[in-house]
């Protein structure tokens, strides 16, 4: 009964307003995103001091643009990871979307037809992934690995594996869309900012967002409480593919041409970005801001390897190790919390 009295003494407002994490600073330092953000800032400062090539306008322009591509796809990947899934097909969706855009425009059609067509193709891939996972219960790893192969192959069939670099009447519009800049900031960065804010809004402020976290936390509970688990899952895979599709369109404009090796093994950087940004591969945890910060850190490190004269062959080693280390850190944290 003593327990009851304790409950009575605490006033209602007090109980409602009390947070699990007391101090704002301890809340901040308990966030992986914070440490990754710090790491990225330190890396930038160090590089500016050590090399005289990092802090140049040209280099920063390139870094921000490159990280925007990984960041946009990582937003979608984060959603998939939150529901406890994985999407290995994003790199292939990038090339499929790019190729649909390129081929449509090369055939003389306007950009406002080509882009929706490319995004529709991307969404179709996401729909397929989602239906296979949600209704036929195929493990997401298997479905999206298969689609990784299928989507790239379709892009090859579509283009006959040739490079496309003539985009018809709207050629210049496409190049400006993905490769241009406004106020000194490359266009893909604007897309990243808007999409990240949108994703953050959806995650935090909508029922859909609440439901994806619930599915990742306990799918059985989500089903029992009446959440439409299957349609939410499908929408998440479609969202991931849409992000990849948008990136595909922007990348054609940036490169000024498409070849079928575009986006190859991009899924690895994207998963690394999401995981480094705090998304938990076991599901239920992740943020839009984390995906952006994770992508930024990866791009800064990748860039630093080049500037420091380390062979680009090492990049895969770094990105791969990042995924393992990020997951390892999470493991350590969980086992410490359980002690």
């Amino acid at each position, binding site marked *: 009964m003593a327990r009851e009295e304790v409950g*009575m003494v605490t006033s209602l407002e007090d109980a409602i307003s*009390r947070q699990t994490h007391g101090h704002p600073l301890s809340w901040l330092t308990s966030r992986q995103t914070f440490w990754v953000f710090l790491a990225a800032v330190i890396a930038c400062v160090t590089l500016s001091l050590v090399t005289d090539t990092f802090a140049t306008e040209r280099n920063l322009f390139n870094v921000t643009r490159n990280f925007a591509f990984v960041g946009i796809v990582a937003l979608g990947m984060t959603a998939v990871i939150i529901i406890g899934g994985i999407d290995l097909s994003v790199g292939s969706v990038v090339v499929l979307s790019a190729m649909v855009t390129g081929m449509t425009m090369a055939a003389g059609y306007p950009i406002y037809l080509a882009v929706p067509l490319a995004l529709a193709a991307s969404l179709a891939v996401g729909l397929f992934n989602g239906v296979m996972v949600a209704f036929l219960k195929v493990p997401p790893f298997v479905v999206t690995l298969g689609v990784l192969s299928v989507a790239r192959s379709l892009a090859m069939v579509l283009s006959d594996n040739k490079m496309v670099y003539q985009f018809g009447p709207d050629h210049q519009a496409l190049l400006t869309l993905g490769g241009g800049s406004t106020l000194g900031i490359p266009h893909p960065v604007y897309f990243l900012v808007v999409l990240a804010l949108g994703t953050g809004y959806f995650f935090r402020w*909508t*029922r859909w967002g609440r439901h994806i976290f619930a599915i990742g*936390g306990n799918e*059985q*509970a989500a089903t029992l*409480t*009446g959440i439409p688990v299957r349609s939410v899952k499908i929408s998440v895979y479609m969202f991931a593919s849409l992000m990849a599709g948008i990136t595909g369109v922007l990348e054609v404009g940036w490169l000024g041409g498409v070849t079928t090796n575009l986006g190859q093994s991009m899924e690895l950087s994207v998963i690394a970005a999401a995981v480094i940004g705090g998304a938990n591969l076991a599901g239920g945890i992740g943020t839009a801001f984390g995906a952006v910060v994770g992508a930024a850190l990866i791009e800064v490190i990748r860039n630093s390897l080049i500037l420091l004269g380390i062979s680009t062959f090492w990049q895969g080693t770094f990105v791969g190790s990042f995924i393992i280390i990020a997951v390892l850190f999470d493991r350590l944290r969980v086992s410490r919390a359980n002690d």
Partner: protein
Amino acid sequence: MTVLALSGVSKHFGAIQALSDVSLTLRSGEVVGLMGDNGAGKSTLVKIVAGNYPPSSGEMTIEGRNVHFSGPADARSAGIEIVYQDLALCDNLTAAANVYLGRELTKRMGPLRLLNYKAMYDRAGELFAELKSETRPRDLVRRMSGGQRQAVAIARTRLSEPKIVLMDEPTAAISVRQVAEVLNLIRRLRDHGISVVLISHRMPDVFSVCDRIVVLRRGTKVADKAVEQSSPEEVTALITGAIETA
């Protein structure tokens, strides 16, 4: 007043007779302990009431009206809520988020529909206070004790002003102190005029909180009596079949 009445309910799965001719009434504010060995038909009975599957024969009425459920949603809208054995909670979400899972409150802001965090925290806090639980709406379920988790699962049933709450083994896997907490939660529900069906293997729990005990054996009801007129020994004998009926 009779809230729930089952008359002659049977259920068979192919050749297996899971329930035969079970009749049962539940008055408002009554706590009934449903006991029986594994395979005695407890969960079949609960699943019929919860709308998971229809009875093969027999009738079910709620407040005198005949009901036929085609799914759990029907049962829910008829005022029946269930606390599942594993509680159906998401560890990664807050207590309030779990209470409102699948029924989140939203508010309009221009063209947007935003989650109404404040309303959900406030109402969840009220529900926990009503249950006299220390659970805090903003805490993550991951960091909660077994008793607090039960409070979250029970608070969830209170959202819709239910008539009947079915509880499946709520005290099966928690510590002794937390068991007392859960039994108090059940009394709290009863005080609000809600009828509770408690499925449990734990004799002390049933005898301390229930008004009436119903014992099932091999799909038939072998006892239905007030706790004062029974004893743990008698119930054990009824469950195992040492006594035929009482």
